[in-house]
């Protein structure tokens, strides 16, 4: 395991002389012969964040730099400030490596934009981007990526990362997300791919489901798939449905719909049609693709009150991330009666295969809610567009419109 250490406390610098201060900083660091410094950067990472969340973002970015050495530029936005001004800090974040012989260091630049200067920040950021390196823009703010500076900076970017778990209105925002992806995909002269940390977060669920199709005998049974039930925890602040009431659309978290969209797009489902008058107020969709499949989105218990959420979950707004989904159950027709279930159990994901009521196989793997730094680290390995994700969002947006 590598040890993280910060060799410098951030130093306040004049925003107009950031580059000069960085050179000075590295020159001083290289004078430390006891701990030789290797300055490393393989990409530019620009992070937009609420100024109030700068502290945790600095830490997340430092962790990230240990895996993807980068020039990191964190832009803290504080548009409600009465005074308009830009301020900056620079620091080096280092990791001890190579048998503790050397330090691998990345630079972190923090720019705070107050008041109306939030629309001027691009002028400071653009010249700081290291040429010939890929540039990722991570929008770490609840809500949609918007603003003049962002509009200008996306021209310098190769990929935008956002987190749909931060969308405040849950699944009903999926349609807008699909439109954004489509628009960015048609951008000239080059398309701008979008990555979604929530998609990466749900990877553990997707992998568990995919492994069911790895087993030839299971695959034969899954050809007779008749019903998929996704049990979810409704978004907080919006009570779960009573026995006969449909869950309000805004209480539907994004995650179950996103997984449903993915399943539909990968398995080639056609449709869907929403069924009315269903039991227990569940959302039930019918897909016509052969064989016909019923998708049930079933609220599982009451919404999670904010009080019991962890800090990390809280910072994502209403979403519980991977814990938004309680269970995904596949029921197959024909003989022998077979069902497959993947469910959350404590901090683990349990896969159970039931054939004629007998458990044939069972696997439990840890299912930790990964910190943002880990999710972004995975996304930074991907440069182009993720068509599977885009297809999943398309499928999910169609479902969301019917909610």
């Amino acid at each position, binding site marked *: 395991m590598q040890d993280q250490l910060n060799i410098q406390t951030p130093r306040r610098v004049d925003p107009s002389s950031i580059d000069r201060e960085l050179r000075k900083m590295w020159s001083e660091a290289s004078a430390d012969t006891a701990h030789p410094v290797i300055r490393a950067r393989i990409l530019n990472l620009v992070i937009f964040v609420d100024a109030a969340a700068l502290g945790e973002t600095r830490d997340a970015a430092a962790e990230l730099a240990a895996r993807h050495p980068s020039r990191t530029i964190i832009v803290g936005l504080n548009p409600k400030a009465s005074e308009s001004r830009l301020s900056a800090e620079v620091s080096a974040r280092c990791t001890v490596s190579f048998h503790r012989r050397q330090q691998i260091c990345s630079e972190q630049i923090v720019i705070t934009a107050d008041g109306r200067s939030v629309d001027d920040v691009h002028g400071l950021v653009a010249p700081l981007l290291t040429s010939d390196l890929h540039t990722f823009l991570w929008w770490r703010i609840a809500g949609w990526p918007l603003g003049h500076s962002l509009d200008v900076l996306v021209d310098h970017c190769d990929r935008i990362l956002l987190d749909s778990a931060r969308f405040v209105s849950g699944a009903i925002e999926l349609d807008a997300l699909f439109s954004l992806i489509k628009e960015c995909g048609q951008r000239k002269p080059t398309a701008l791919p979008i990555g979604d940390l929530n998609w990466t977060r749900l990877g553990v669920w997707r992998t568990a489901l*995919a492994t069911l199709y790895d087993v030839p005998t299971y695959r034969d049974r899954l050809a007779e798939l008749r019903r998929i039930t996704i049990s979810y925890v409704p978004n907080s602040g919006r009570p779960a449905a009573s026995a006969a009431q449909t869950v309000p659309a805004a209480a539907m978290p994004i995650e179950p719909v996103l997984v449903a969209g993915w399943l539909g797009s*990968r398995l080639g489902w056609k449709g869907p049609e929403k069924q009315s008058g269903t039991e227990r107020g569940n959302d039930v969709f019918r897909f016509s693709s052969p064989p016909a499949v019923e998708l049930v989105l079933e609220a599982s218990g009451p919404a999670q009150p904010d009080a019991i959420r962890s800090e990390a979950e809280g910072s994502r707004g209403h979403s519980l991330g991977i814990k938004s989904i309680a269970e995904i159950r596949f029921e197959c027709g024909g003989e022998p009666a077979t069902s497959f279930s993947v469910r959350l159990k404590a901090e683990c994901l349990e896969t159970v295969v039931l054939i004629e009521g007998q458990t044939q196989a069972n696997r439990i793997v840890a299912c930790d809610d990964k910190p943002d730094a880990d999710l972004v680290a995975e996304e930074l390995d991907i440069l182009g567009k993720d068509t599977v994700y885009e297809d999943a969002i398309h499928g999910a947006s169609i479902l969301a419109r019917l909610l």
Partner: protein
Amino acid sequence: MTQKPLNPLRDELRMQAAIEPCVVVLFGASGDLARRKLIPALFSLWKKQLLAPGFSVIGSARSQMSHDEYREAMRKAILEFEPDAFNDTEWKSFAAGLFYVSGATQDDQTFVGLTSLLAQLDSERGTAGNRIYYLSTPPSLYDPIIDQIGHFKIAHPEHGWARIVLEKPFGRDLKSALELDAKLEALFDEDQIYRVDHFLGKDTVQNIMVFRFSNGIFEPIWNRRYIDHVQITAAESIGVGSRAGYYEEAGVLRDMIQNHMLQLLALVAMDPPVSLDANSVRDEKVRLIKAIRPIDHGEVADYAVRGQYGPGIVDGAPAPGYRQERGVNANSPIETYAAVKFVIDNWRWAGVPFYVRSGKRLPKREAEIALQFKSVPHLLFGKTAEQQIEPNQLILRIQPDEGITLRFNSKVPDPRGIPETRIHEVNMDFIYGSTFAANFPEAYERLLRDAMLGDSTLFARRDMVEISWALLQPILDVWGGTPPSDFPNYEAGTWGPKTADELLEREGRRWRRP
């Protein structure tokens, strides 16, 4: 027309290929390799959801143990060797698929129990007749295990597939390798046989191909017109440790040169394969090894040097000589160091020697491939500079400090304005750890996964093994027939015997000091 994927949910760039449910039958189940490497690697694959829910392991060894006792022994092994990887809930779920059959491999009852358990797992855990027979045993047990597999007719299951995985050494000379291969071939098809060379499972070794064949600037100069010679080094600072019994039978030529080093040589010198499928890559490697000029018995002294370490200082501490190590014959003739010059007779490499060396108790652990380029044809920079100009080198560092270095000459800045140009050799470094900053996956994890997927690219093929033995057989014969008179001939903690330096010096070259 594109084929519909078998698993539509895996059709995405983030998901690794699927492994079908199977049983790994682990012979030598309580041995060092199983405890240190194999079970931790399988557990890691399980945690990554790369193994099917019904995946199972049947350990087999002589020790009497119940299933639960075996599970407990393996739990302790994980806690000892991979403590950070342990998670009790995940372990219990994985361990539910661990089983144990005790008994001698020669004993029919062992295989009666084994085949019955295999059938039971197929039915209860959905392993579908798929088996990997992993021989993690001393080579002396290969024959009886293969015989029993044949006797019980489990090499070709009625449903599913069977593969056999063997650890090196694959024989101890050409004759025994041919015998082993013949025995294997009588039961298995070549595509069922996986000969492990764990060097090939290392990411940095796999990067040799990526470096060569995905960068347009290197391949045009990767030949005799630009390269003077190549040095391949695998140095270890440790002694034989607990492997004295094995080492006394093997020596470094069998232990390292015949397999790991020739594989590295093949990767660095072969022509581009037509594709990355297992046989295309291995075809090119074999073609290259076939082009190596055979060494006649009478020429061995010109091409190969052997050494054995005496007492010395390693890592600042006194180290015993080889003959003083526990389990080693006090007059042992076994070589702990070997250096061999290989000459490749093909258009690309004619006249470019490949010097290969490996040894124990050298100053440090280091594996690298260094390509030395030819000197510039004409020196412009005056007499002083002439002595300072070194030929360029490209160094592929396999371990540790994995990376790539290009050495070239640069003008030394001189603020005093002295007219004489001073030149200094400098390094342009790519360091894996500083760029990707990720831990390298354990080689066995990759190799086990590939064996279960049926991808044999990173495994040695029969012809490669046999040609390698044939190439080294004259050296084995001469060294075996002429006991060394000068052993020990290098001090522990030094870079090998003087004769190794002379091997290069007589051609106007010298070994790098990694």
